[in-house]
């Protein structure tokens, strides 16, 4: 007696159950011949299997391009050129950063210079003698300070004239 004969006998004795195709050969095929189910039902622990790849796990080779085979191999001189190119590209970022830093430093230096120049201009007080050069008719005191004693008689007259004008303007 085979084990499946017992199973069939149990199942056929249950009430309320209708079983289609209850032939022994059909049932035994469904129980023991699993090849048909394995072809259609996914059996995998991959959580994405049901929704995406039906249990087929992707490998790295899936996305390998067929064009790759047409790429020329790096050999000899081309390899050196490629290495130089890669080296240049890898240094490009640092060189750009260095350039930006130098521009920023230059800008800061220029700003400091402008601020210093402005502060110096602001701190310098123009002497009255320099200011008087731009005012027409104003006598320069430094010129009088450097005059010889024999020239001071003219200065005395000049002082008298200006005091007289001052008196006239007060009287008017």
């Amino acid at each position: 007696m085979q084990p499946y004969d017992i199973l069939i006998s149990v199942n056929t004795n249950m009430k309320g159950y209708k079983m289609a195709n209850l032939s022994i050969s059909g049932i035994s095929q469904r129980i023991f011949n699993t090849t048909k189910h394995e072809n259609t039902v996914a059996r995998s622990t991959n959580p994405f299997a049901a929704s995406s790849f039906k249990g087929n796990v992707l490998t790295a080779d899936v996305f390998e391009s067929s064009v790759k085979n047409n790429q020329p191999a790096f050999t000899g001189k081309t390899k050196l050129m490629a290495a130089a190119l890669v080296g240049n590209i890898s240094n490009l970022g640092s060189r750009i950063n260095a350039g930006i830093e130098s521009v920023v430093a230059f800008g800061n230096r220029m700003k400091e210079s402008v601020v210093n120049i402005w502060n110096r201009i602001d701190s310098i007080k123009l002497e009255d003698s320099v200011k008087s050069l731009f005012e027409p008719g104003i006598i320069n005191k430094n010129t009088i300070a450097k005059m010889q004693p024999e020239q001071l008689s003219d200065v005395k007259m000049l002082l008298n004239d200006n005091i007289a004008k001052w008196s006239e303007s007060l009287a008017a």
Partner: protein
Amino acid sequence: MVDKKIRKNVENIIEGLSMNPSPESVVILDEVGTNSAIDDVRELTSCALVKRNEHESLSVVIVNKGKGINDMSTFVAMSTINELLALDDKSTAIKILEDTVEMHSDEEVRDNARSVKALMSLS
């Protein structure tokens, strides 16, 4: 109202004369500036003479009655005293003030010199 240019010319002439090393410049300031009828001119002249800080120039504003610290105008007298107090080297001015207190014939000039000397000693 006095013209700005005229006032500036007078100021520059007085300052130029005070900077000129010639003794003749002190004479001009004494004759023209301190004898002017205008208070501002006398005030400018007295301050310029004090800034010169020489015996001759300081004597003009300390010893002479009606000039410098002895001027009838309080404005001129006080400006001259302020200029004396602002001097870095007061030795020459104090010497002239001491001589004035001891030897001047006019009592008012002596009193003024004594008061100014006391102020300079305290400053």
